[in-house]
């Protein structure tokens, strides 16, 4: 027997980049995100300048958890509800999940690559002269 999740009030400001707000039961969730975050001096961007294939992080395998042992277990839910009076969330981002209700299995994976690009450094000469 599973418990009901009772949330009286929930407020979420932002739900971005393929995040999910789920009310109800779920059997299996497998969110996955690949992201290249570029901070670049001089706002000049072209599409397809940064293909995922260029960076090994996007092909490196995730370490898998092995050796799962089956454990005989019994649960006794003496109260049928999980009660929450209020939830406030500023933001959910990057394939994350806000879930009210039973979530049987989740296997979430994320790959994030950060790149900083500066214009050619002309400030060095200024520092030397001053």
């Amino acid at each position, binding site marked *: 027997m599973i418990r009901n999740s009772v949330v009286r009030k929930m407020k979420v400001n932002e739900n971005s980049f393929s995040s999910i707000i789920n009310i109800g039961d779920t059997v299996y969730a497998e969110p996955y995100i690949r992201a290249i975050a570029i901070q670049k001096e001089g706002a000049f961007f072209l599409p397809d300048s940064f293909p995922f294939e260029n*960076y090994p992080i996007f092909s490196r395998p995730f370490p898998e958890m092995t050796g799962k042992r089956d*454990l005989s277990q019994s649960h006794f839910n003496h109260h049928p509800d*999980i009660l929450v*009076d209020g939830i406030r969330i500023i933001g959910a981002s990057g394939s994350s999940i806000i*879930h009210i209700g039973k979530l049987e299995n989740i296997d979430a994976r994320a790959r994030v690559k950060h790149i900083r690009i500066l214009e050619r450094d002309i400030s060095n000469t200024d520092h030397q002269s001053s």
Partner: protein
Amino acid sequence: MNFTVHNWGLNVNYIDVLGVSTSSILLVGDTNCVKLSSQFDTPPESYIVGAAISDETLQDRSEKQT
């Protein structure tokens, strides 16, 4: 071995969260198995000084400038 869990009443007053980020979950409810993995990469070589982005980009750029 037998693992026994007794769930007595669960009452939560208020949950205040700033952010739920990549490969994370905020869950109000029961679950069986949770696996959350994340790879994050910011090595020193990601810090590029100068315009050397890719050959393609440089070509496009020079074409636009001329």
